[in-house]
């Protein structure tokens, strides 16, 4: 699980930019992000609404609706090959086969007029040379694997006959039916109750161990990150602000946004009289600040933060932060301000 071993990298995203062109202007939803995923590990991408985390996941599979969206630059290397140069036909053989995806709302992602079994069997037949009967049997096997009781019966049922937790299990069965190397799970448990969430997260972990799948888990829930991920990227306004080990982010957060996020979390494990909040709101995607996008809400911001965007830089063996506070320029900026008497 070392970060620097190239051989283990299955997915590498470099300077990815996804823009949306609308009447109101250009929204840089994903604004130059880089990260990598190693074989068998779980990478969490966390952020609040509008941070670009879901657009990142859709970009990886080239599922951005165009127009208005467009991947404007960067590269997505999957096993060394750039997905952005692939034809649509090649992409189709990758999606659901080598890289699959689970979405938040299983009801809208399942076809309401086909049975659960038929939908899983369809995915299997699309990517593997299997007959109808064999594909069906495999679909039933998958349902059993994801812990659905009496899978033979459930396979024949339509999505509306299943509960929310069961539908999400069907989605997972479908996503894993072709043994993908990468699974992208976009808020897979957000719509579920906590006791069901615990079941589903446990299931994803077990299946990941059995199949050796690498998982990208997109979530807004820091607790989920802590319990399931190896590494984590914190996104804010289309950029990664902190990229580090999942445990590290809770014991030793660096970026002021990450710290603010952790402080505003009402905790189950401790009493707080008042929550520390981050003042203000996320900037509009059409009117981004010139410098660091978090500067207007940051208690530490100095003039340098308002003027230029900080790069994501390594500050430790496994930690990268994009904040001027961790650069040599910070001290200089500080001295300069002292001189002027601010």
């Amino acid at each position, binding site marked *: 699980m070392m970060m620097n071993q190239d051989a283990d990298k299955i997915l590498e995203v470099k300077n990815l930019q996804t823009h949306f062109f609308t009447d109101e202007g250009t929204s840089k939803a994903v604004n130059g992000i880089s990260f990598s995923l190693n074989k068998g590990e779980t990478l969490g991408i966390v952020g609040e609404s509008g941070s670009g985390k879901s657009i990142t996941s859709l970009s990886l599979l080239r599922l951005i609706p165009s127009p208005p969206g467009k991947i404007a630059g960067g590269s997505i290397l999957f096993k060394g090959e750039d997905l952005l140069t692939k034809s649509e036909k090649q992409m189709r053989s990758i999606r659901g086969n080598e890289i699959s995806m689970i979405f938040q709302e299983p009801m809208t992602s399942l076809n309401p007029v086909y049975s659960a079994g038929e939908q899983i069997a369809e995915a299997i037949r699309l990517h593997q040379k299997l007959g109808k009967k064999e594909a069906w049997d495999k679909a039933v096997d998958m349902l059993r694997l994801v812990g659905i009781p009496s899978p033979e019966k459930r396979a024949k049922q339509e999505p509306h006959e299943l509960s929310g937790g069961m539908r999400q299990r069907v989605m997972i069965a479908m996503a894993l039916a072709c043994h993908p190397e990468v699974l992208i799970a976009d808020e897979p448990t957000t719509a579920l109750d906590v006791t069901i969430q615990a079941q589903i997260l446990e299931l994803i972990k077990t299946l990941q161990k059995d199949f050796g799948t690498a998982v990208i888990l997109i979530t807004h829930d820091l607790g989920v990150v802590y319990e399931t991920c190896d590494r984590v990227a914190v996104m804010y306004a289309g950029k990664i602000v902190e990229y580090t080990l999942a445990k590290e982010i809770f014991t030793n957060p660096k970026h002021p946004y990450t710290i603010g996020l*952790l402080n505003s979390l*009402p905790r189950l494990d401790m009493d707080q009289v008042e929550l520390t*909040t981050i003042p203000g709101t996320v900037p509009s995607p059409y009117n981004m600040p010139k410098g660091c996008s978090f500067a207007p809400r940051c208690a530490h911001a100095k003039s340098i933060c308002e003027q230029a965007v900080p790069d994501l830089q390594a500050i430790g063996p496994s930690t990268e932060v994009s904040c001027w506070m961790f650069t040599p320029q910070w001290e200089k900026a500080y001295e300069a301000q002292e001189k002027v008497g601010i």
Partner: protein
Amino acid sequence: MMGVPAAEKKILLKVDQLKQYFPIKGGFFGRTINHVKAVDDITFDIKQGETLSIVGESGCGKSTTGRAILRLDEPTSGSIHFQDRDLLSLGKKEMRRTRKDLQVIFQDPFASLNPRQTIGKILGEALAIQNVVPKENRKSRIEELLGHVGLRPESMERYPHEFSGGQRQRIGIARALAVDPKLIICDEAVSALDVSIQAQVLNLLKSLQRQFDLTFLFISHDLGVVRHISDRVMVMYLGKIVEIADKKSIFEKPQHPYTRALLSAIPVPNPVHERERILLTGDVPSPIDPPNGCRFHTRCPFVQDICKTQLPELKRSAQNHQVACHIVS
């Protein structure tokens, strides 16, 4: 809260044996063929100035309880005493007058604000219906209300779509405050907000409570939020109360197996917070045909024979702690 021991505080709302069944129509002549037992015989009270939270998963009846208190749905049976008056015996007119004291904040602030009205109009309407301030003072009252929730007076001229989610929820709070209520029911009031915004709104609710001596019935599925805001917590499962206790007892000494499972299911980002996870199997049964005996017995890891046949009563197990479980008592 505020130095007065809980026991000495006046009871503001008393709910007694409340039942809320929704009929399911079907068959040839649209007869009632069955009932969804959304809330099935619950009894609890809320004291002046405190925050009581109702927690539970989808379908446990927590929102239905809130709606029944406001009589947005007509309860099937039971009684609801608010300041010693039975709400269920009030006529339509009297009930409308009483709603001045009972306000509600919903989860989705956008769906509960009229998109064609300015904020000033929306708040003015609340003031006009309950006639709490004379017409000529309304504008200054609206400005004052916006100030209470941290919005600028210019917001009056703007429409709901011009605000962010957090700001809209502040408008919802201002509207609830407009009529000087005594009890505010917050139904998943912060669930749709991002954590950084949620924290702002939670702090606001707490400070308003101190300022105006408000009583909250806080309905939420998020136990972190509940721990932060509550004085007491009531856990519901399939239309029944399984446990009520003060916050400290619920979070530090939960007794009902369901409460324990619920608490252990929540991922907590803290390496020191080691706990044993109770992973429940299966789904919540249907409220149309709930299991006999204890409602939770189908998923309970400690189930005994008695649980399958006899419904456990809500019994006092310690001071300020009531639990409905055969094994605990």
